[in-house]
């Protein structure tokens, strides 16, 4: 569903992304784990067509982003660290607007209220102006947008940083539901715990390169942590699945 092929991005001196190869299948949650500056946001910007790749391609559901920027974007939903909404509009109005602009026509209010209810925003919350929302509520509107526009893929950039644990958990549950319905999820995070909790697979990024990819159901939390730290200090070689099994045992 989401596919990067030798995707490369260079800013003047910085090689922000170095020949990334990555596939996220429908129904899969893939977490990009890495420290600040690893190249996570750059990856997402390339998928959104906000940046032109220096080399390689990013494609969504078979559409190369650079060739079909609008159609490609209409298949994804994007949730940044801060879901930015119009403060003077209600949650419902924001949702209606973003859905309509995604090329899905105007959806009925009752449909949209149902979607908001599904992500945990009841009617009274939905009709309040967003200026009064907590960060957690705004992130939920972000998920609602993804549901309402029937996105095939979800791109998340540190969506839970700054959320309290309860809100963060609720958010993870919603993500799981979306994946359960066949949405491909690519989530950038530096939160190792969250990545292990939510993701099916975790890719460790360092200096623009995907240095390791692990399956979360085959690795214990402590092992992931130590592996991650070793990668961060540059003294680990990429692990194979068998390495993981060794580490896990």
């Amino acid at each position: 569903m989401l596919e990067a092929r030798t995707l490369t991005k260079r800013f003047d001196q910085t090689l922000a992304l170095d020949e990334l190869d990555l596939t996220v299948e429908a129904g899969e949650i893939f977490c990009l784990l890495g420290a600040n500056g690893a190249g996570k946001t750059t990856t997402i910007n390339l998928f959104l067509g906000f940046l032109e790749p220096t080399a390689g391609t990013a494609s969504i559901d078979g559409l190369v982003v650079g060739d079909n920027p609008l159609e490609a974007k209409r298949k994804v939903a994007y949730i940044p660290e801060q879901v930015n909404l119009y403060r003077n509009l209600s949650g419902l109005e924001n949702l209606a607007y973003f859905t309509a602009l995604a090329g899905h026509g105007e959806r009925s209010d009752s449909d949209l209220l149902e979607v908001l209810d599904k992500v945990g925003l009841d009617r009274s919350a939905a009709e309040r102006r967003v200026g009064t929302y907590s960060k957690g509520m705004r992130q939920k509107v972000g998920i609602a947008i993804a549901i309402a526009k029937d996105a095939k893929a979800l791109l998340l950039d540190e969506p839970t940083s700054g959320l309290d644990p309860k809100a963060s958990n609720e958010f993870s549950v919603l993500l799981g539901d979306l994946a359960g319905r066949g949405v491909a999820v690519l989530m950038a995070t530096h939160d190792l715990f969250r990545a292990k909790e939510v993701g099916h697979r975790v890719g460790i990024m360092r200096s623009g390169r995907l240095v390791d990819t692990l399956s979360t159901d085959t690795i214990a939390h402590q092992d992931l942590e130590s592996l991650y730290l070793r990668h961060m200090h540059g003294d680990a070689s990429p692990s194979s699945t068998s390495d993981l099994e060794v580490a896990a045992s």
Partner: protein
Amino acid sequence: MITTVAKKELTETLRDGRFRWMAGVLVVLLLAALLTGMASVRETRNAVAAAEAAEGETWVGQGERNPHSAAHFGRFAFKPTPPLAYVDRGLDPYLGGTVWLEAHWQNPFGLRPAEDRTALQRFGDLSAGFVLQLLIPLFVILLAFGAFAGERENGTLRQLLAAGARPSALAGGKALGLTAALSLVLVPAAVCAAVLYTVGFAQGGGGDQVLRGALLAGVYLAYGLAFLAISLAVSAWAKTARTAITVLLCFWVTTTLLVPRMATDLAERLHPTPTPAEFYAGIAEATSNGLGDDGNSAERSARLQQQVLDEYGVDTVEELPVDFAAISLQGSEEYSNKIYDHFFGELWTTYMAQERIHRFASLASPLLAVRSISMDLAGTGLEGHRHFANAAETHRREFVKYLNDDMRDNGVGQSFSYMADREVWAAAPPFEYEPPGIDTVLETGSNALTVLILWVIGSTLVSWNFCRRVAGAGVAS
């Protein structure tokens, strides 16, 4: 998609307390300006009507008098105040609306150079025209500066584009929504203006006033739209709302305050208006010494006498069948007319040269173009004034000639002791003035109109270009 964006833009604007506050102030200012404009037009009209009636009485009832002394007694001509002056008083307050018509002298009114000095550089009276010309752009700027820059700054633009919104639809929708918001202020104001008009000028509206009013509204709308397009362009270009508002306010100050001021100064420097002293000294000098090699007044007088004697085939003035004093008066009248035509013609040439500089400057300031079209449509502009001044002067010449001819034909042998009476006064040609029609106005205003249209087209193209590219660099980080 465009209507969705427009609707959202309008909803958001209407919910913004700052918008409601600004719109309220603008509407109140406009209404106040219209009401005071209305009151002042009616006051002027009433005063003129009263003065006209009294003046007619006084003229006809002046009793027995020598026609030439009646010509010195003189009459007044009044410039009718057009109803749309309540929207734009234009140059009327500076140029004045009455002129005293008497023998020998083309009296100053509008053409008094001293007053005309300020006439072309008017600022600051609270007329609806002033409010519209200065404050509409400011209002539009405050309405639109954040359209893109604000959304870029708070991240919603990035999110919109990530959702797959087309930049062109965003631009179109924003323009439409903001135009609607602007209309919410201007349409009620225009309706109030129309109601005031109907109530206030039930009689004497004049045939093409409705068309003029509609055109006036169109001109101000186009003006607002030009500023809207520019504001959107800057907003699409600027990284932050603060940058956008700073750039736009500089633009506003430049185009509505600095450029008009500089144009006036430049026009005055390149084509100086003579001071009244210089101007009338020139006329006095030409009157005694003659224009070119026409000779001094004694020589001209001798030449005229010889010409008349030849014409009647007689040797002396006493043998003439007509009154020579009257002929001589008319002769000097006609010579002074020639001098006036020369000097006022030069003065108008100067004004027109100054006007041209304003027209050029209007390429840098739409306000200059709109100001001129607005006055012309209201009937209070320079061209309208010139039209009236010419009509009044033509009438003065006819009127004085009528009196001189009466003395020439009926005062034989009596000259200045000949007395005419009421019948002669009553039969004097009346001053009937018809202001220029809309077609004339559009013709003389075509340059300014063209400049305004260029502004609208140019700003739209520029705006389109910037808004189209809004998906570019600024949103990636």
